[in-house]
């Protein structure tokens, strides 16, 4: 029996405003507990919220970037529930009229095709504080520094049909919010959080009952959690059971999802318009102003990279997937680096090292200028590609600049043709058997000779020159 998976995502993206969405307190991460919460954030008697216009502008930037309908009249509502880290006993959010309406975003699929994913809405809301359960034995500690941090909740249509697609979509949104500068995208710090609504059905059937997966803080876990959930649902349905609508918590340590609350146990949030806040009115002037100030979006950048740099669709897609990678690449090109070499190095050795060490490109120990210097040494034949890889490692380890490493380790490519010819003669004379075999038609042996020469020169010979001289001497 084949099952079809249906996934929709709710992404909470923390907006990069300096101050909170309804107060003047700072939003900076990592301050001492409860030092960045003012009377408004603490929900003191008599305080009132005042909307941060910057948060509105950021929501509008997002809406315009996904071609969404902007609701020029939107309303803040109160979502009422009790929790110790929710100071007012309600969260100010948007319910019936969100600021951003229906939009869409294109994602690349594995088969090379593209797919449009619908965005149902995106609304502004305030974050809650943090409950810390493991600090004291008998108490839960509350840190309200995060309370009131602006969030943009981005809700997708149930348009994804695999965990991989869901991750691609999430990455695309992750990239976009960083492109337009509204979110730092830091998943460890919780700046970008995903909840997944997952259901399965037989092809052609109506939508199945869904489970909402929460507490997912990396793309890897998103994929794992969805796959786990799909398996769980298939098992239940194939055993003749039925799916219960519920919220399930993903446990990354145990790699399992478990029920948090069922639909029956769900809060009745008693939404109603917040009488402390006026409806948000967006005029055409503000909209066109924000439209003008939008930076180049990923798709636009990709098209430009293909057109201006002659990159392949695949390379352009990869290089523009993250704004910081695109910027890194572009600053190399701007210095005059070779396009193909730059692309290969950024997507190859650099990406691999960054991934391996879990470092973001903006924190790379090798700057764009330094990588440019390295590949320039390849272009001008100072070093071979193979030596360059060794130098890259040394640079990564902080052993100095390209010049210093080449100098100190004596890695400069041999340019003395006479000396090279001497070494090649020696190799040819020491391997008469192989020379005979080569002359008898075993052309594969050329590689053997090249290898011997490279070994004898500690890799400093230029492979092209070696090839050419060998061919001359052996023919």
């Amino acid at each position, binding site marked *: 029996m084949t099952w079809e998976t249906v996934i929709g995502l709710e992404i909470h993206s923390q907006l990069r405003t300096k101050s909170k969405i309804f107060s003047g307190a700072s939003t900076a991460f990592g301050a001492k507990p409860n030092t960045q919460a003012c*009377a408004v954030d*603490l*929900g*003191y*008697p*008599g*305080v*009132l*919220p*005042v*909307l941060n216009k910057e948060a509105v502008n950021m929501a509008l930037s997002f809406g315009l970037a996904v071609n969404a309908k902007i609701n020029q009249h939107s309303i803040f509502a*109160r979502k*009422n529930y*009790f929790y*110790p880290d929710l*100071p*007012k*006993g*309600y969260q100010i959010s948007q319910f019936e009229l969100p600021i951003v309406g229906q939009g869409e975003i294109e994602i690349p699929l594995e088969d090379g095709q593209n797919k449009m994913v619908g965005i149902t809405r995106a609304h502004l809301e305030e974050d809650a504080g943090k409950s810390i359960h493991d600090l004291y034995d008998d108490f*839960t500690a*509350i840190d309200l520094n995060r309370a009131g941090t602006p969030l943009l909740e981005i809700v997708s249509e149930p348009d994804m049909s695999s965990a991989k697609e869901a991750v691609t979509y999430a990455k695309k949104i992750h990239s976009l919010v960083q492109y337009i500068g509204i979110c730092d995208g830091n998943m460890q710090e919780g700046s970008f959080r995903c909840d997944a609504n997952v259901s399965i059905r037989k092809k052609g059937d109506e939508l199945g009952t869904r489970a909402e997966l929460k507490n997912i803080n990396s793309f890897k876990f998103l994929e794992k959690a969805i796959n786990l959930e799909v398996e769980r649902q298939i098992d239940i349905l194939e055993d003749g059971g039925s799916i219960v609508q519920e919220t399930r918590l993903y446990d990354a340590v145990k790699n399992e999802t478990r029920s948090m609350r069922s639909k029956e146990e769900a809060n*009745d949030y*008693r*939404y*109603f318009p917040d*009488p*402390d*806040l*006026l409806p948000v009115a967006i005029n055409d002037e503000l909209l066109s102003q924000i439209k003008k100030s939008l930076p180049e979006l990923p798709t636009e950048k990709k098209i430009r990279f293909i057109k201006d740099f002659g990159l392949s669709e695949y390379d352009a897609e990869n290089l523009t997937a993250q704004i910081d990678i695109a910027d890194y690449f572009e600053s190399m090109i701007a210095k005059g680096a070779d396009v193909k070499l730059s692309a290969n190095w950024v997507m190859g050795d650099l990406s691999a090292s960054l991934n391996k060490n879990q470092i973001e490109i903006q924190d790379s120990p090798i700057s764009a200028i330094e990588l440019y210097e390295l590949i320039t040494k390849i272009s001008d034949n100072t070093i071979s590609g193979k030596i360059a890889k060794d130098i890259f490692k040394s640079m990564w380890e902080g052993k100095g600049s390209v010049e210093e490493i080449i100098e100190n380790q004596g890695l400069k490519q041999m340019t003395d043709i006479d000396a090279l010819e001497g070494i090649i003669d020696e190799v040819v004379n020491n391997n008469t058997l192989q020379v005979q075999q080569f002359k008898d038609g075993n052309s594969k042996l050329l590689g053997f000779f090249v290898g011997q020469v490279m070994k004898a020169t500690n890799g400093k010979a230029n492979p092209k020159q070696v090839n050419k001289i060998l061919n001359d001497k052996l023919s």
Partner: protein
Amino acid sequence: MMHKLSITELSKGLKNKDFSSVELTKHYLDRIAVSELNSYITVTDELALSQAKDADLKIAKGKGTILTGIPYAHKDIFCTKGVKTSAGSKMLDSFISPYDATITEKFNNENMVMLGKTNMDEFAMGSSNENSYYGPVKNPWDQKRVPGGSSGGSAAAVAARIAPFATGTDTGGSIRQPASLCGITGIKPTYGRISRYGMIAYASSLDQAGPLTQTAEDAAIVLNSMSGFDDKDSTSATKETPDYTKNLGNSIKGLKIGLPREFFSEGLESDVEKVIMQSISEFEAMGAEVHEVSLPNSAYAIPTYYIVAPCECSSNLSRFDGVRYGYRCDDPKDLNDLYLRSRSEGFGDEVKRRIMIGTYALSAGYYDAYYLKAQKVRHLISEDFKKAFKSVDVIMGPVSPTTAFEIGTVKDSVSMYLADIYTLSANLAGLPGMSIPAGFSNNLPVGLQLIGNHWSEETLLNVAHQFQLQTNWHSQLPVEP
């Protein structure tokens, strides 16, 4: 007899050095000390005297405003830094506010003198001041009777002249009704005129602050100080504040008064009606024209209000959860127990009743039938007024269907809610409303209500002042024990 002077007179006395602010303040503190009305929850003697000293220095330098050095009583719903701010509730009995309400700040900037914080119905929910954790306030005209509510402590204090004026808040009549029952002047301006920042919220879309004073002229002076846009309150209006004292002297000849027929139907005590009609005749004698108008939806004001206000309060009062400040029950077993007992023990019955009504009305499946329907009716009530104000300048009628009733005699909530029948509409429509002393029924004061169009405070104050130039109801004082 400094306490018999209005703000205008007191201000003159301070300026002429007839008395100092310290002397004046001591005089009031002495009167408060012997008062048995229970109108103050907290008396801030030390603070008052130090504020009075500062005011005297300022006055000596020839600086300061008309209000500098004037003592006042602050309703205990306004946050006052370093001073207990209880909202009449056990829940906040231990709450010392860490900040000042915008109004408090404005008064401080003018070097006014806060005598103390006045008693009130818990979280401003009530019409008799019997819902206070600190006990009922007595009406100075008859100490067996209620002063009205929720600003009962403020009204009683001004009526007994143990404060020259007091602040109040009016969500459904909480300034006008106690002003009426205590025989003083009170105005609730247009919604948005005065900042709500630091005013503990009951029903945010209805709450509005205002002064309770001896005269309309005093009300204009205090309103000048209280009004204006506040960037801490998104619902405060950016509209410029006029000088409310400027047009007090205008003639009201040709003023068109509307009498809504719905305000003179069953339920209105005949003696109260008689007083109201006599004051209307007074206005006619002054050259005003009287027209009958209709507010057909005003009958729905009570059910509409008692949906909207509880819905908003059920959410506004969620923050009182025993977690960060205020009352917390002893030895909570777990989180649920902490919430349940802190709130059950910390809130009084009427507050709990309204929280439950509101929670119910906002619940899934009931929202459309209650909250949304109420909002629609609210709009219709507004439209009624809009129509009426096409033909008249000011609407007049009773404030309350009865005079002050005896403490403990109105036992069921619904009968109590009926006391607000004439005042609720102005809040639902966001209109300015005023109560001025209009006469007596069985030696108890009766207030005349004036309702104006949006932003017509100047007209209301002018009309009230002209009436007070012709009558002396506002200068009648209760006999002191």
